[in-house]
């Protein structure tokens, strides 16, 4: 597995300014071959700009980006041959069928006709669109479009796939299919995948590493566990406990437990802050006092919690933006 450690995407000091607004500010990043990397951040953090710069669609103001050793600015044609880009709201020609759209992509990539037909057939089957292939794209649902987008990206058999908000606005089942496809592409075919998203939950499921992107800067980068560890140092363990029946008595009992710093109650949900992990103790206490346990969940190991803490650390004193982020997180829960 030595070759899988090789960095296929290398970004150094990448900067993009629009007028005096800096969209991406000195981004350093390297992604290894066969890895699924999640680029996370709220809207307007510069994720899309980064993906556009990687595919050579926008020129960076400063810095360099290399994909498989090719300069994204100097050799965009070579880069475009090995990089598949799936934009957000991927668009197709609505008055053409799915198959025709793929055929067009094949023609743009200069694939020989026979090979293209064979590949289209295979990809339609793989993305579950074999029945819809001859329908006009205008009649497709959003999930189908997204899957057609995956097929479209795979038409050129890319080494690197860059996806911009691939999971936006599709239903849970479509999401599952899409995520399965993405994992398959990375693990079975050893393609490198860079996903930009603000849907933390999905990203957490499939990404090997994530980077948090705030206001054009990469504030943190690593596996989800690493990020959780990084933020844990300056915050307490937080455990969510749900029981029936819920009353204030339990709150007082929990508060008196050893190592518990705070207890909050919201209906049947109790949020317990503690100095160390005390899940066992909490469960035991609840059961012993005649409550039946509905759920017990350590908070803070999932991305949105990490995300929130990073924002708090970044010092969002500005009330409105804080509210926005909270809304943003609650939306994605």
């Amino acid at each position, binding site marked *: 597995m030595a070759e899988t450690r090789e960095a296929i995407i290398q970004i150094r000091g990448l900067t993009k300014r*629009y007028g005096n607004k800096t969209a991406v500010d000195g981004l350093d990043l390297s992604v290894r071959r066969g890895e699924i990397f999640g680029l996370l951040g709220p809207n307007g953090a510069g994720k899309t700009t980064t993906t556009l710069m990687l595919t050579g669609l926008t020129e960076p103001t400063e810095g360099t980006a290399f994909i498989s050793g090719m300069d994204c600015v100097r050799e965009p*044609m070579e880069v475009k041959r090995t990089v598949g880009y799936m*934009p957000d709201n991927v668009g197709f020609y*609505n*008055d053409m069928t799915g198959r025709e759209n793929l055929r067009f992509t094949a*023609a*743009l*990539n200069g694939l020989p006709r026979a090979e293209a037909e064979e590949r289209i057939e295979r990809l339609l089957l793989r993305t579950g669109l074999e029945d819809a292939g001859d329908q006009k794209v205008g009649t497709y649902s959003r999930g189908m479009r997204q899957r057609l*987008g995956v097929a479209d990206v795979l038409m050129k058999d890319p080494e690197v796939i860059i996806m911009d908000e691939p999971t936006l606005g599709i239903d849970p089942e479509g999401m599952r299919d899409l995520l399965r496809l993405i994992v398959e592409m990375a693990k079975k075919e050893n393609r490198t995948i860079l996903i930009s998203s603000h849907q933390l939950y999905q990203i957490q499921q499939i990404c090997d590493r994530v980077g948090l992107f705030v206001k054009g800067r990469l504030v943190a980068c690593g596996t989800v566990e690493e990020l959780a560890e990084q933020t844990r140092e300056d915050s307490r363990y937080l455990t969510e406990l749900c029981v029936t029946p819920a009353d204030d008595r339990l709150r007082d009992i929990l508060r008196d437990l050893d190592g518990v710093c705070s207890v909050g109650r919201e209906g049947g949900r109790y949020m317990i802050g503690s100095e160390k992990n005390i899940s066992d103790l909490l469960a035991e206490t609840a059961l012993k006092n005649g409550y039946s346990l509905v759920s017990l969940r350590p908070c803070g190991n999932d991305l949105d919690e990490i995300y929130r803490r990073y924002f708090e650390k970044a010092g969002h004193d500005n009330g409105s933006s804080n509210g926005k982020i909270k809304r943003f997180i609650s939306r994605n829960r």
Partner: protein
Amino acid sequence: MWALFHKEMADHIRSRRFLLILALVAVSGFASLYGALESISSGTDTDFVFLKLFTSSGSSIPSFVSFIALLGPFVGLALGFDAINSEQSGGTLNRLLSQPIYRDSVINGKFLAGAAIIFTMVFVMGGLVSALGLIVIGIPPSLEEVGRIIVFLLFTGVYICFWLGLSILFSVLCRHAATSALAVIACWLFFTIFLSMLAGIIAAALFPVNGGWEGLFNLMDNYKCELYLNRFSPYYLYGEAVTTILNPGVRTIGIVTNAQLEGAVAGYLPFGQSLLLVWPHLTGMAAMTLAAFVLSYMKFMRQEIRSS
């Protein structure tokens, strides 16, 4: 680029919009043919009868030439007004550009596909009208007439391509297809209708002709001023050129004094001379087309590709 070119061609041919325009042009072409035949059969002039198919008008129907001059722009702008911005709003542009093609091949492919469609349509239309006319009047065209008709069709193609270029320019400039359609229709109306009025007003203001002796002296300048202003409009330019090409009786464009006409032998102008007379018009129209295209090309190449 050829993949794009083929796709655009296929799109145009299959689109309902194009079929509609084709029907419109065909109907007006045949109507004008009918009118021309009517006036030819009642006329006594037998020189260059075949060319009269295109130039003469019936009692109530304008001639083929004037129909094309009026409707031709419509064809061009219908083919081009949403060339770039529909790709942008449909989200297909960035997908397209992430394929291994150069950015300019998108706009080149679109323009070339439109131009190919236009030239095909124009020549087919011209051929159809000639063929029908030949069947009805039964007089075969002379070689000179064929040459004149081919040059006329070439002019028409270039003329419509100018409008295609202009509409593509607006499709790059405007984010919404509706805006660019409105803008280019406004241009069309301005050039075909208002510019001639405006030219008259400006010429009258600069060189008043209703003031006694002074007016008499201004007459020439007034006319020239109006003519030159009018020639800014491709519509006027096209009309002037085509009239000269299709009517060998036109010996000169612009103003001629009596002194210059003295001693001239009345007769028809040879084909070569007619061509010489309208050569600047062709150059001018080709230059305008190129200018429109180059502007849109430059703008497109510098544009930021953001879907939002």
